[in-house]
């Protein structure tokens, strides 16, 4: 059984078909890249998958059970964790507390949550700033912190929206290493990124969207050589 089944999901904003009959499956332990030009519907699709938007049509199954229409907190409790493109943190709470929120809300007791938070802080190399408020961190550190919050309790699937955008290469490498290590243990990811070298390196499989539709879904190298993808996204003319 697929971990995540997206079946004919559609979303309109007025006359704009932001997501148009999108279907794909994600198997347990898969790390799938989601690429496409700006405005192609990637973030809207992630908003639907994480419960921040209701689809107009179609269905989404998590472990075979329908989950569309559930609120974000309910989906988080079922293991769907979301990282936003524009960082969303608790700016007046310190780094540790930012992580504790997810840990405590997802069922860890105080001691287990604290232990887990400190381990993540060390792994993401945020130890030096762990007592600072999130609003005092640099942009890259904030991205790392939000990234870490998604893994306070290992999710069934991590939906990562542009984790590498505007991030220093050192921090990008920390996140890449983290993703590789977790993927090796069976963690599932759907990773939205415009950073093609990272997508090629990390994601065995990639889905490409354009104008709200899936135009390619295959292993990453195949997708990147698909004429439609080259024309719509990578630039240049298809051979």
């Amino acid at each position, binding site marked *: 059984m697929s971990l995540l089944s997206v079946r004919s999901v559609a979303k309109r904003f007025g006359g704009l078909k932001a997501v148009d009959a999108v279907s794909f499956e994600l198997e347990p332990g898969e790390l799938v890249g989601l690429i496409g030009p700006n405005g192609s519907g990637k973030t809207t699709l992630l908003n639907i998958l994480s419960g921040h938007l209701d689809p107009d049509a179609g269905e989404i199954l998590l472990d075979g059970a329908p989950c569309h229409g559930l609120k974000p907190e309910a989906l988080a409790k079922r293991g769907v964790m979301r990282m936003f493109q524009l960082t969303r943190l*608790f700016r007046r709470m310190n780094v540790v507390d930012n992580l504790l929120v997810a840990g405590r809300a997802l069922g860890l007791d105080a001691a287990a949550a604290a232990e887990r938070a400190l381990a993540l802080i060390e792994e993401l190399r945020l130890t030096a700033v762990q007592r600072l408020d999130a609003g005092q961190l640099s942009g890259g550190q904030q991205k790392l912190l939000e990234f870490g919050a998604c893994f306070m309790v290992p999710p069934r699937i991590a939906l990562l929206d542009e984790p590498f955008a505007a991030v220093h290469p050192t921090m990008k490498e920390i996140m890449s290493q983290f993703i590789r290590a977790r993927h090796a243990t069976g963690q599932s990811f759907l990773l939205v990124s415009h950073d093609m070298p990272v997508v090629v390196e990390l994601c065995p499989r990639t889905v490409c969207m354009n104008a709200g539709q899936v135009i390619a879904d295959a292993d990453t190298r195949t997708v990147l050589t698909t004429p439609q993808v080259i024309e719509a996204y990578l630039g240049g003319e298809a051979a």
Partner: protein
Amino acid sequence: MGGDRRTALEFRAALVALAIAALVPAFVENAYWLGVLVVSMYFAILAGAWNLLAGYTGQFSLAPAAFAMMGAYATGLLGNNTGLPPLVTIPFAILATGAIGLALGRVVLRLSGPYLALTTLSFAEIMRLVASNSINVTRGDLGLPVTGLFQNRIGWYYLFLGTLALLLVLLYFLLRSRAGLFLQAIRDDEVAAARSGVDVVFWKTVAFALSSAACGLSGALYAHFAELVTPDLGTVGQTGLVVSMTVIGGMGTLVGPVVGAFLVYLVSEWLRDVGGYQLIVFSLLVIAFARFFRSGLWGIVTGLRRQPA
């Protein structure tokens, strides 16, 4: 400084201040000034309760004085109509205002910012007008006589001081608990809180209910202290005072609203001779603190720097 350590420091400072406050009646025998201090503590409880909602949960309600008024009428009306003692009618007032706060919290769940402020302000004005116009029940602007509790003001002083201390202790433990973590997360970013698994609807409703119940308790005690309840207790001006006290003292800090309540009320007593001008002074102070010192006087004293929201 970490949130927990900051709150723990504040709590210790509050305990010291309360211990000093417990000695005040030994030096202040004047009934008028004891009365001023009692009313300051009435406002301190309101400011602390409002701070839970606005400062720690980010829900800018403008109805704290209305809930105090409702608590005052609840204890007064129940006591007058049934003969039940304050020991029964005051807990009833707490439960009644908590239930109304819970209902209001459910109604305004999807609102934020100016829409939440305007809706709660409208609710507060409707409640005040209902109290003012239900002459057969409340005696309207003539006021509802309520039985007293103590013969002298020292009893009142310690009752209000004990209630304020209890509120601060409960707030402290609430803030250090899982619930406090969730409330502050909701204040900073509701979307991120929901993404983290926090049940935003539930916790916002809890904050509304707890804050309203504490306002109701303060109003109920005040009713027995003043031995009279009028709709004036729930005016927008009274809510403005509570907001001023919290902003000037330090919103989102444990001790700030209490410091602000004492300062603003005591200064307003000293400025009583200049009449309406005192409101201009407080309004200017609120603007200055909101613009330049967002963590309030308490923040200045403790060196707390507040990041822009």
